[in-house]
């Protein structure tokens, strides 16, 4: 086996200057929330470590993760990361096709056995033996199991791979299943979102490549540095929430004033993501900034949480869908009414009894 190149060598080969390389190192350090002291460490790791190849496979998905990824806000980071990833096999980005592509995949697996990172975009449908998603003539679930077997770690890109997303929304006819429910013996990092933010994607890959381990994860297996807080916690409209100033209708004056979108069903208070800090499209904006509530795309089962425009949503429990307020108010009304009737009957009975007593 030939000597595996270091990250640095790969980058230089890709025409990246030393100066750009150092910039990238400091950018990454700050993106990951590390101090300046980490810049030389990252640089050193990059210079001395053999690059870790990344195999990127696609199941049931819409390619929005890839689309997001190649639109990284910092072109530098994106180029570097792209050059690090073995693009021998990536549906969207690879040059080869057909048998050549499948052969390239096998090559990479053999060459880097136990050393590569598997990035999964989309998820496998399990119904009908997985026939709802065919890759290279075989069900995707087969390919996924095959590639995952020798992977060091797995990245679940986006809501599809992490939670199932729209194809897994009720009633989930194809039984689309998130990656961690199919592959259970590998460390899996979830990077949910529909799609995830580009900088989050590059940041996660860079961290794993430089430090040779998964970043700190939260309870659901998401990188804590990007999914540690809710949109609501860092939202620039938060002061209006605390003040009790809300958009009451889409075309009202409050909407023009940029008040809080809570009453319009914004899912910011229940959504863990970095949109309100990193934002999208080179830090230009994010949904709330453009006047629309968050739909909670990086949360588990966000398609099945009732309307995007309702704050108090339906809940599916015991097979029935119900809205807490509708059920609760109706029940309270019925109980209140019954009490009134019961009280009236009680009073009547009591009067009757008294009369009987009086009459002896």
């Amino acid at each position, binding site marked *: 086996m030939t000597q595996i190149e270091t990250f640095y060598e790969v980058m230089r080969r890709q025409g990246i200057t030393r100066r750009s390389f150092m910039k990238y190192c400091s950018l990454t350090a700050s993106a990951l929330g590390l101090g300046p002291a980490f810049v030389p460490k990252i640089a050193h790791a990059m210079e001395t470590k053999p690059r870790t190849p990344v195999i990127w496979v696609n199941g049931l998905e819409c390619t929005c993760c890839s689309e997001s990824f190649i639109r990284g806000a910092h072109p530098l980071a994106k180029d570097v990361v792209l050059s690090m990833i073995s693009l021998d096999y990536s549906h969207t980005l690879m040059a080869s096709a057909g048998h050549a592509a499948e052969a390239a995949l096998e090559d990479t697996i053999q060459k880097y056995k136990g050393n590569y990172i598997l990035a999964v975009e989309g998820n496998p449908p399990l119904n009908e033996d997985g026939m709802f998603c065919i890759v290279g003539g075989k069900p995707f679930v087969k390919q996924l199991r095959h590639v995952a077997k020798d992977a060091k770690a797995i990245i679940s890109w986006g809501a599809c791979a992490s*939670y199932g997303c729209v194809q897994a929304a009720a009633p989930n006819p194809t039984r689309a299943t998130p990656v961690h429910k199919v592959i259970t013996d590998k460390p899996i990092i979830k990077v949910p979102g529909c799609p995830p933010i580009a900088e989050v994607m590059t940041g996660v890959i860079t961290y794993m490549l430089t430090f040779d381990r998964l970043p700190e994860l*939260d*309870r*659901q297996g998401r990188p*804590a540095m990007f999914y*540690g*807080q*809710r949109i609501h*916690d860092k939202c620039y409209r938060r*002061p*209006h*929430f*605390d*003040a*009790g*100033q*809300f958009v*009451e209708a889409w075309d009202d004056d*409050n909407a023009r004033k940029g*008040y809080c979108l*809570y*009453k319009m069903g914004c*899912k910011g*208070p*229940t959504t863990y993501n970095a949109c309100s800090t990193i934002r999208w499209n080179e830090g230009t904006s994010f949904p709330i900034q453009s006047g629309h509530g968050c739909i*909670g795309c990086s*949360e*588990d*089962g*966000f398609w099945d*949480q009732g309307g995007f425009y309702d*704050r*108090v*949503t*339906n*809940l599916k429990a015991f097979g029935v869908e119900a809205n*807490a*307020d509708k*059920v*609760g*108010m109706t*029940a*309270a009304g019925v*109980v*209140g009414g019954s*009490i009134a009737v*019961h*009280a009236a*009957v*009680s009073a009547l*009975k*009591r009067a009757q009894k008294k009369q009987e007593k009086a009459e002896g």
Partner: protein
Amino acid sequence: MTDLTPPHLRSFEASVLTGDATPEDLETLRKRSSVYVYESPVRLWHWVNALAITVLAVTGYLIGKPLPSMQISEATHQFVMGYIRFAHFAAGMILTVGFFGRIYWAFMGNSHARQMFILPITNRRWWYEVFYELRWYMFLVPEPKKYVGHNPLAHAAMFFFMTLGITFMMLTGWALYAEGAGQGSLPDTFMGWLLGLIGNSQILHMLHRFGMWSMVIFVLIHVYAAIREDIMSRQSTVSTMLSGHRTFKDDRPD
């Protein structure tokens, strides 16, 4: 002056001499007995808890369905939603501390302090009494029975809506609180697991909201029943929760 009072009522001398008691009054007075049931920590907890739940239900409702927008001043100087949430969290903390205190008292207090926490479901007689009390509420029997502690129906309601209900509200409430407090915080260390278990916190919010409605329904029935029993049953209720003494209105058995 001859004493008109029958000999067995002579002990109520003060009432007789001040003229505020008729012979009928004195007859009843003799028959009435009272039992000290609810010790002061139970009573204190009851009213603190009732107040906390009232505040929690009102503020909680307004958290999900906020008041109409107000333009009192600049957002920086206005904190309407903030105060509502603060009141909710403060009451939530009082509820939590109170409930733990109540559990402590279940161990330290008299047997009635334990009633709320245990349902004697293996006791056939208890089931009979539940249905008997139910029949009393359905006007099928002319008279309820006497109970020293909670009547069996109230007992069951308190167990499900309060013992389990408050536990449910505390668990879900603190898990929601953990979201704001942040990862690694104390609430997160204790209750964050629930968030991880449920996945999407929107679900948690709605479960918590369902819980509020169950509390509201309990309180409606509870307050009605307490006042109704006080008037119509053979024993005191509302004053029992104030003084701790259960008075019985007649000396007939059962």
